[in-house]
């Protein structure tokens, strides 16, 4: 019978195979996920899923050549064959100018004890939470709901040929719920947390239900324009602000797919805006003690007072940028772990009062770039969307699009709320702690042509 191995044994075996083959360096990362999911539609559970996956990422280097591969077969013979194939492929490659050796001395990281053990096997929790969310949405006015609840743990285990050993386990529970009162009237709510204690399915359901009720009889926006004030909920603001984390990856900067190219030390946003990446932080959803090169993670200020302070680096990009790694590897490309947008000092009510002519957006999707280099994009608001005139909410609105540039928008931040929420869902990959954000002078467009018959 084929022999499968646990993460630590698998990593040890992989490193020893690589060394025997003659590799100068090897990094083995085994990722084990253990997640449960319940999806619901028309207010009933449609499917439950258990996703138990394990995969290895293998990095090899020899004489200035390097290669990275991944495998999802933990069987011993298979891993040995896979590393052999990778090694052979690497030796046929030219030397890589981007190669940087791993640190000569490794580190041993202690496992973090802070993940929520209740989420190690969350199957028994799902049904109750789904029902709580649906009931809360219906109590707030929803006729039907659709959503997804996901709970579980993900572990990263790393071993490298320089002696680095580490193991990180994160727990998380994510609920995303949409409520409907008719075809054009919907609301969205979400709650995401690293632990059961802070998870609020009832709040998410009530929010979705309330918006679905308020969105009844939504109207088309009277006119397009370039002068809308837009108040973005944490869900919407984190979708756009978390992209700055991606654009701050030195890989994106080198590839020319970032509007932050050449802007280090320059103003890229309003002085009110601060954005920080945290490897580990109280309550964050994607904590990592070490990065994929085995370096310790840290907190890195990306934007401080509107000025770009740092890109995110691994060893390879840091060398080319003549700086130090920020502990954000990615073996291929560095990326953010958890983003924090600095809080402001306004309440939601104060922000609405400040608006002369604008829109409140509570959810969005399908953000796409015309040009990553310039940051010009558009995104489609959905669910609760409201027209505000002279500080008062006037009407629910449908069928609009934000068509602007990230730099222009975030240079025009007027207010940030003091309250913040963690956001991670379909439209926000990197967990982001984000306030409400009020932006001036936003371009809002709508589609040409008639609507279909009802």
């Amino acid at each position, binding site marked *: 019978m084929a022999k499968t191995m646990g993460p630590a044994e698998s990593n040890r075996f992989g490193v020893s195979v690589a060394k025997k083959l003659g590799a100068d360096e090897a990094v083995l990362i085994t990722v084990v996920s253990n997640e449960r999911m319940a999806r619901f539609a028309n207010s009933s559970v449609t499917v439950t899923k258990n996703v138990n996956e394990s995969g290895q990422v293998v990095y090899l280097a020899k004489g200035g050549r390097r290669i990275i591969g991944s495998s999802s077969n933990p069987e011993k013979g298979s891993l040995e064959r896979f590393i052999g194939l990778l090694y052979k492929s690497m030796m046929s490659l030219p030397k890589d100018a981007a190669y940087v050796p791993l640190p000569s001395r490794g580190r041993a990281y202690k496992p973090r004890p802070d993940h929520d053990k209740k989420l190690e096997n969350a199957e028994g929790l799902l049904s109750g939470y789904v029902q709580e969310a649906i009931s809360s949405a219906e109590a707030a006015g929803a006729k039907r709901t659709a959503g997804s609840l996901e709970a579980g743990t993900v572990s990263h285990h790393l071993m490298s040929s320089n002696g680095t050993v580490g193991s990180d386990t994160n727990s998380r529970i994510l609920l995303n719920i949409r409520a409907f009162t008719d075809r054009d009237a919907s609301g969205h709510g979400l709650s995401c947390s690293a632990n059961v204690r802070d998870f609020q399915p009832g709040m998410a359901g009530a929010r979705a239900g309330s918006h679905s009720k308020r969105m009844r009889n939504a109207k088309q926006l009277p006119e397009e324009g370039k002068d809308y004030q837009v108040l973005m909920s944490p869900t919407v603001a984190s979708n756009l602000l978390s992209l700055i984390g991606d654009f701050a990856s030195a890989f994106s900067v080198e590839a020319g797919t970032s509007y932050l190219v050449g802007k280090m030390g320059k103003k890229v946003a309003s002085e009110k805006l601060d954005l920080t990446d945290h490897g580990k932080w109280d309550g964050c959803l994607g904590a990592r003690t070490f990065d994929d090169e085995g370096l310790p993670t840290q907190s890195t200020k990306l934007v401080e007072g509107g000025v770009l302070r740092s890109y995110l680096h691994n060893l390879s990009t840091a060398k080319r940028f003549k700086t130090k790694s920020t502990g954000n590897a990615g073996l291929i490309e560095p990326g953010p772990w958890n983003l924090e947008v600095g809080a402001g000092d306004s309440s939601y009510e104060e922000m609405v009062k400040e608006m002369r002519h604008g829109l409140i957006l509570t959810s969005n999707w399908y953000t796409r770039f015309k040009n990553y280099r310039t940051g010009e994009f558009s995104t489609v608001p959905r669910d609760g969307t409201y027209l505000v005139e002279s500080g008062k909410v006037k009407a629910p609105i449908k069928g609009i699009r934000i068509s602007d540039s990230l730099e222009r928008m975030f240079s025009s931040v007027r207010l940030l709320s003091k309250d913040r929420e963690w956001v991670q869902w379909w439209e926000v990959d990197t967990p982001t702690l984000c306030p409400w954000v009020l932006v001036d002078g936003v371009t809002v467009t709508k*589609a040409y*042509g008639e609507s279909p018959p009802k």
Partner: protein
Amino acid sequence: MVASAGAEEKYVVTSDGGRVESRVPRFHFFAILTALKGGDAAQRMIQQGESGGLEIVKRIGLVDLVETEASTVMRVLKEAEKAPTGIMDVVLGPELSGIAAHESVGHPQEADRILGREGAQAGESYLSKDSLGMKVGSEEANVSDDPTIPHSNGYSPVDDEGVASRKRRLIVDGKITEFLQNRSTSSYLGVKNNGSSRATAFDREPIIRMSNTFVEPGDYATTEELVKEVKDGVYLKSFTEWNIDDKRLNQRYTGLEAYLIKNGEMTRLVKAPVLEITTPALWGSVRGRSKRLEFEAANCGKGDPMQGIPVWTGGPDTWLGGVRIVGGS
């Protein structure tokens, strides 16, 4: 640039006696090309993919393709002038015809969306279960999805519920004729299953997916012959940014390689013309189609956990009469 080659091997077994063993090799290529001039930039994403072996690299002329696209994006940056704004005729090249067919015909005609099952994330549809036969386009609007095209990126002759797939005529002469179905939705709706269920891996749920979605070719022999019919307008050959609302009613395509049409001829390059239009307005304005049928590869996202699945999007040149274009910056 990213190139990938691999084979998808499946063995599908169903309790009603289905046994399907398949192996589909695929090649896929993706690149972002950035042209810079002074402080200005233009960007082009290209995707090519087919089922088959590495002979695909030659068949699609990959090296020439990258060279041509790089040269085009540089030309756009250097030469494109401000695009006009107003109501005018627009000709969508095959790339634009394909994305429009995929986004505003294929997706809203997925029966699971129509029945609300994808409402949490991917969204629902502007159509209801009673929309079969509904007029959503002109007589010239004809859109299909066909998983049986040899070498196609979305090749899937038998679906992942063990059901034989076939070509689906989604819109015929402007009327909705068929939804994409799986076993569950077809049973619920009381219609014949057309085998549209696909999964990206053994541990992912098979859900309703498009395969190769395209505007059917028409009567005009060439692009030039079709463009001759247009007095003033814009030809959109390729696009950059695109998106659509989650009911698939309000879409936007920003042109990259785009030409001003004057008196039936393509003239100068114009910069970033935006077609932002409702689905009925787009398909209701189709006046003609050329004979040439071309496809682009794409990776279509849907499901939770996300399942990116290989598809083709395609079509001929599609002439839209009297729609709004907004000139770019």
